[in-house]
């Protein structure tokens, strides 16, 4: 692989890792709960009387949920990998 490309991509991915590591360094005591949940909490604070009028039809148990999240990323990752491999080996 061309060295300049390798360096550029390595630097970009390194920066991505740095951005997320920084979150833990700058905010070590935070619980990193989901912004979606915080949004729901803010709604309850603004409207203490509000009752959600619909609840999820099916909610997976926590273990299943993390499995489905991983599965989702894996399916996407396989398709992406297939595409990038196709690009890499196809002749212009």
């Amino acid at each position, binding site marked *: 692989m061309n060295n300049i490309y390798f360096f550029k991509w390595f630097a970009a991915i390194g920066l991505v890792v740095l951005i997320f590591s920084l979150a*833990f360094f700058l905010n070590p005591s935070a619980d990193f709960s989901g912004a979606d949940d915080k949004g729901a909490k803010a709604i309850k604070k603004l409207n203490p009387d509000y009752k959600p009028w619909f609840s999820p039809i099916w909610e997976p148990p926590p273990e299943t949920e993390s499995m489905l999240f991983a599965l989702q990323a894996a399916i996407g990752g396989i398709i992406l990998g297939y595409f*990038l491999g196709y690009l890499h080996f*196809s002749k212009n």
Partner: protein
Amino acid sequence: MHIMEGFLPPFWAAFWYLLSLPFIFLGIKKLENIIKQDQSKKLLLAMSGAFILVLSSLKLPSVTGSSSHPTGTGISAILFGFNVSSVLCTIVLIFQALLLAHGGITTLGADIFSMGIIGPAVATFSFNLLKKFKVNFLINVFIASFLADIFTYITTSLQLALAYPGSKLLDSFVLFFSIFALTQIPLAIAESLLVYVFFDFILKSKPTILKGLI
């Protein structure tokens, strides 16, 4: 940005559904056209959808001390225009609402509107505008992808502020903005770096794919 199931009053749930439907309809038409004209675009479409699927499943920590996920809609908005992103997002959001209890069926319209319409639309618009000004392609995709991500969360903040204005709409917007949009800034930068690497890889391997975009 997934608004929890049942957390939008019926009026707003219906409102965002109605606003989103025509865009999804246009997107399906556009998708049909793309495939009819060029079968080879199918792989590129699948890849754009896969990128959304992967990025929106990654709950990442932010410097604000909470976690959120990127949207991944930049690539499809740049390659095909925002209407196509709307359809791809709808598929991903339905999967997440039904199987993961992430977002919901009543809030689906609002989630499609923020993640599948406004975010990608801003990206497509910004990309075309900067292209006219001859901005470097890789810088342009970086900016477009950043805007797609951040505007999704600004839209969510606005949607929640409209539904829950409290005593003052602006205060409520600032509150939701601080929860959603501020958390999103480092995530959007990281997402844009990935999009940059992705397009640089295409430029190096098979630049003919990007014909007409550069």
